[in-house]
């Protein structure tokens, strides 16, 4: 059973403030998240862990450092590859795609 990944009430922090609910797509599928939270947070909350597949070996990668250093969590966002999703705020209508090597599967050059 997948546990609810959002922390609704925290014993120390209380209710964690969120932006408004927005819609975006992941590889074409409709998703929800909160405006301003990192794209990666919205994806993790939705149970998505694979952000990209590497260039050489095609291996899956996801969140690693969560603060924009390691660049493991990059995806294609609004057509731009290599976007660090852990530090890029979610916006209404964003088009997020799993990155395969240097691009999304459908070439976005």
């Amino acid at each position: 059973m997948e546990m609810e990944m959002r922390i609704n009430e925290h014993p120390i922090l209380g209710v964690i403030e969120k932006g408004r609910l927005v819609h975006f797509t992941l590889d074409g599928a409709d998703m929800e998240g909160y405006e301003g939270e990192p794209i990666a947070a919205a994806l993790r909350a939705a149970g998505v862990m694979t952000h990209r597949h590497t260039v050489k070996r095609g291996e899956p990668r996801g969140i690693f450092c969560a603060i924009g250093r390691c660049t493991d969590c990059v995806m294609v966002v609004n057509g731009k590859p290599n976007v660090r999703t852990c530090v890029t705020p979610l916006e209404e209508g964003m088009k997020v795609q799993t990155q395969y090597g240097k691009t999304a599967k459908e070439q976005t050059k």
Partner: protein
Amino acid sequence: MSIYLDRSRSIGEFVPEPDDGLIICRCEEITKGEIRQAVHEGMWTMTEVKRFLRAGMGLCQGQTCGRIVKGIIAKELGLEAAELPGNVDRAPARPIELTILGNEGEQ
């Protein structure tokens, strides 16, 4: 910083190790074995290994693997990691779009 290194000094033969297949540089997918092998081919500094293999030359610019690569090279050379010069740090500290780079504010 430079360190005296006589590249003719013998460091022994390359001996395969069971964990040679481990990815060390996550960005460029360079393995421990490739790094060790490069040392035996004469790449004795972090910069040379980087230029030879691209370890630490990817999107994150060695922020994750730098320490680990240094440790592997030092061990192969029989040195302490602290004796080896590290990678040279250069701008930009984070990736920057050409269009932003070119859009200078008040100069």
